[in-house]
């Protein structure tokens, strides 16, 4: 019997498989690339459980404690610093000194054992980020850490990817703010775009901002 060796439907199959050969890896790779850039991939939507239920909302918004009261090394050290237990106890020896929320803090203080906080903003080990230079040049806390005053538990609000860093390093002026508002959670640049730009340029000049993009700026 003569006739086509392959039935007609094989055409469709071969077309589909050819398309699949191209599409599957493309979708696969594209999907992975999208995934690592997604909020999920950059750990932005990840809940963190801390050893102590510390609520920034209460301390920052309600009590209006400046960030630098606890993170006191932020202006002079690469590290913003996690407050020592003594800092907690300097207030909580007086107030809420019977609160069950603070049991673990008191225990740690009297046992002289450190509290093992979980790192939320975790950069790779080959990245050397320096808090002091950013804070001294007008990059506010909220720029990278988000509205900490609205977080019950600290989470990562910005992607902290290299692309995100470099974006600002290439053009820092829109992200600058006067130093007196450096820890402000609510400061916003002037609404008028021209005014905002003018302020950014003025601050960049005043604070002698020279953001660099050479690799060794962050990688050593």
């Amino acid at each position: 019997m003569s006739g086509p060796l392959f039935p007609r439907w094989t055409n469709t199959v071969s077309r589909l498989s050819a398309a699949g050969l191209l599409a599957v890896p493309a979708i696969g790779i594209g999907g992975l690339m999208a995934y690592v850039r997604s909020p999920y991939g950059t750990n932005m939507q990840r809940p963190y459980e801390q050893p102590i239920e510390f609520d920034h909302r209460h301390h920052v918004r309600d009590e209006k404690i400046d960030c630098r009261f606890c993170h006191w090394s932020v202006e002079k050290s690469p590290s913003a610093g996690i407050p020592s237990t003594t800092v907690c106890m300097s207030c909580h020896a007086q107030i809420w000194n019977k609160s069950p929320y603070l049991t673990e803090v008191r225990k740690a203080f009297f046992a002289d054992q450190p509290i093992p906080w979980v790192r939320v903003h975790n950069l790779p080990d080959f990245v050397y980020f320096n808090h002091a230079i950013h804070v001294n040049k007008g990059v506010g806390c909220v720029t990278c850490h988000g509205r900490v005053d609205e977080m019950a538990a600290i989470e990562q609000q910005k992607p902290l990817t290299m692309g995100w860093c470099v974006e600002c390093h290439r053009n820092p002026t829109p992200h600058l703010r006067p130093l007196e508002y450096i820890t402000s959670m609510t400061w916003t640049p002037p609404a008028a775009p021209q005014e905002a730009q003018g302020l950014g340029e003025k601050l960049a000049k005043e604070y002698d901002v020279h953001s660099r993009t050479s690799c060794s700026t962050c990688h050593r």
Partner: protein
Amino acid sequence: MNTKNDSAPSPGTPSSFALPVVPAQAAAAEEHGHGHDHAHPHEHDEVGAALDHAAGAGVATEGGYGKTYWRSLEERLGKPEYMETVGPEFPEGADLPPTGFARREFMQLIGASVALAGATACTTRPSDERMVAFTKTPPELTPGNPLHYASGMTFAGHTSGLLITAREGRPVKVEGNPQHPVNQGAAGIYEQAFLLSLYDPQRARVLRQGKAPRSVRTLAEEIAGLVGKASTGDGGARIRFLTEPNNSPVMGHLRSRIQQKLPNARFYSHATLTQDPSHEAAQAVFGQALTAQYDFSQADVILSLDADFLESRPANLAYARQFAHRRDPKMGSLNRLYVAETRYSITGGMADHRLRVRSSDILGVAAAVAQAVGGQAAGLASAAASKSAAPSGSAEKWIAAVAGDLRNASGRCVVVAGERQPAAVHALAHALNVALGNVGKTVRYLPVATESTGLAGIRELIADIKGGKVDTLVITAWNPVYSLPVDSGLAELLDPKHPERTKFTVLYTSLFEDETSALVDWFVPAAHQLESWSDGRSFDGTVSIAQPLIQPLFNGVPETELLALFLDEPFRPAYQILRDFWRGQAAGVADFESHWESLVSVGIVPGSTAAAVNVAANTDGATALINGYQAPKPAATGQYEINFVPDYKIYDGRFANSSWLQELPDPITKLVWDNPLLISPRTAEELKVERGDVLEVSYGNRKIQAPVWIMPGHADGAATLPLGYGRTGLHETTAQGKGYNANLLRTMNAPWFDGGATLTKTGETYKLISTQQHWSTAGRPVALDFTVEEWRTKAGHGIKSALARTRGDLDAPGNKLNLMPPFKYDEAEYKWGMAIDLARCTGCAACVVACQAENNIPVVGKDQVSRSREMQWLRIDRYFTGAGIFEGGYENRASPDSEPQIVMQPVMCVHCEKAPCEYVCPVNATVHSDEGLNDMVYNRCVGTRYCSNNCPYKVRRFNYLHYTQGKQPTEKMAMNPDVTVRNRGVMEKCTYCVQRIERTRINARIERRKITFEQSAGEGKQGELHTACQQACPTQAITFGSLHDPEARVTKLHNDERHYKLLQELGTQPRTVHLVRLRNPNPALAAPKASEGEH
């Protein structure tokens, strides 16, 4: 433009030897040279021709520069086996997987790791990282910022003033204290390695009696009982202490109090290398034991009689700096250094004229010089001449020239004798300095800082033990069982099999369980000096307070606390003992607290530097001393003189467990992880041995086996055996089994040299690994040195073509050789650059270890080094130079006039402006920074190694294996947290210490100012930015700074007349320039070398 000579490689040239393009200027300079008397007026580019030859034949360049530079005998002679090994960039096996893996096993491992990789890829989320905050932050500490503490390192009777960097409570870097008069900010290799010994996980941890662990309290009770009995009884007549030479005021105080309590107890001290002969000679010449302190900055002519003063502890840091200042033509006329010595030493490498003589002939040389100089010295000379005949032949001329030069420079010269030489030589040196009027000018005499440490005391101690006069022996000296000469008898006495052994108790304290600890009754783990409070004098009397940086990591007991147990008093911690002592010393001080604070924070006791003593010479005593000297028996025919020297890397063995130092290439031989037996080429010829052949050395009735290393420039008829290797300490696993133990031939009568050794070939061979042949530069000369005269006239064609090739401006307008557009730095704040002065560099390698410590550079082991996989970013190339040495070819290699000179050249990444590595990286892992750094981005690197292939300087290092894996917790503490720890498969190289640049820059930018460099810091102050190598360098050979600043020292050196750029002919435009080394030969001795310049 004539590039024909260069662009046509000789037939058969492998493409990797493709020759450089010569800039138009080079050819032009050659044309210019025609006016002068030129041997070959038609040869346009002799260098090119020479390089052609070199590339084709693979032999060291000859003639092109009027000089020959070579790195080893085999290279010089072009032995085919050798060329096969070094021709390729990497030796055979460099790219093989680690040994011990069969192919199948390897595939299995690969399979397993792929499977595991698949499993771990299921999540992008790293496991939670914990942040552990302080419970109470120490007030002085800001987390993330380093703190610096003044401290000190005591060893061999000298305390080096240090400044130690601590990060969050752990010391991470050792540097010299800038305010210390000896260190002046510099730190040698031992100081650097000091840090590693602190964290060494092999350190002893258990205080034990026999094999039973004990508490300090038990020990204290034991000692209290002993002391209580002795103090009321015989006054401690049966107690002996064997200590390191004591230079510590507090320890001296403790001792005197112990002596009050136990008046009959005796203290002995032992150090391998001592200043005793010098002190003894001073006693004879001046009537009192004195330490000579030299001022090389005032000396125009220096004669070294086997004195390795540029490297020999303890004064080397200060001396090297003074000496180097006088090698820099900018600082005035050059000095002239004559060295008479046996082995090629670091000081010999800096010599203008070097005389190779056996150690036993040094006395003869000294006597002949003294005779020729005359005056008071001549009186001693005749006595000395009877003990050791002056060498004849060419040495006579040498001695006459030296004596003439010394006489002409009376009061501006200095004669130095080495520690290995007997008191007789020192007496002659003292007498010569007196006769030449140097005392009070270039030589000052200071009171002796430590007590006698010679072997006489040891003899007495051993005799006492043998005579049953000792019940208790307390040893705090480093490992005497290993380090004492073999016939001292201590090892036998301590041996449990010895019949008398049960009659006395031995207590020993040390950082490690070593050869001595295996034989003692009580062992106390010592606290490291960085873990305990102490003090100590440097050789010039300056007292440093050494503060600890960390609590004892391994339950160590500080030495002061241990000694204080013998006072039988209530316990006081080391801090209290030290503070109480200094409180007693500060009787007149109103506010002791602030006084003490300043002592500790500055680290130096003000006014403690010793004042010079007025001396009057008396040659009679010296004549008696020389007459009493027992000259070693001359070597008979077929016999050789053996010389023992402390090793350049691990000293007498006490640093043997430091992997940094074991892997550091020896400054002269460039050997790693081993000690060789050094002999001269002629001796090798006599013995018919090649390098690596194992020889049996027999001396007295003892025998050891040692592998040969043929060392050009070594004295004929002598062999040198470095000490410190062949360790068998139980827990010192890094040191175990490395090299051979030369102490097994040393005797009490001849601890340093003696004739009468026989060397026999065993027929076995041993693989010695020298790094000097790694990374061949295909014969292109990269280290330049000229005589002052050559440099002044710049007439020789060699010098001209060398300079045209290394200094031609490839960026000149109209030059089309460069395809890449130049980088623009107008907007950059700084333009980083470095300058390395070869005239100053002695090759001591302090920079190499400093770099290793600063940049978390791993140690890879002997096997890996043998495959060219060493990781040190900075290497020091040691070139021999001198034509006419082996002109007759391989057969005549033992030609008697073989007097090679040495040029040392530190080479690290030169941060090319047009960097060949940058063009070839497929992933942009090495890129140019806006300030001209050649950045290395580890996280981008995928390990193609293209960059390393394309690097003409061979300064890139590849992590073939995961070298940083498996570190113990304490080892991790030594890591610099500012530098990434590299993983397997990543390329790395010198970064100009970018982490220091960035930290300093950020600090300056926060304060809205510029970085303060030396030139703007003000008189006597340091700048705030130094690279690690620059900071450590005792001779200030390395300068770093911004080329944007016309006042910067580095900019001035970049414009210095002597500057040149490595392989500039390739168009790489290095940011690091080297400065030509100048030699200052005596015209009276220059005549026989005239043939060198001929061609």
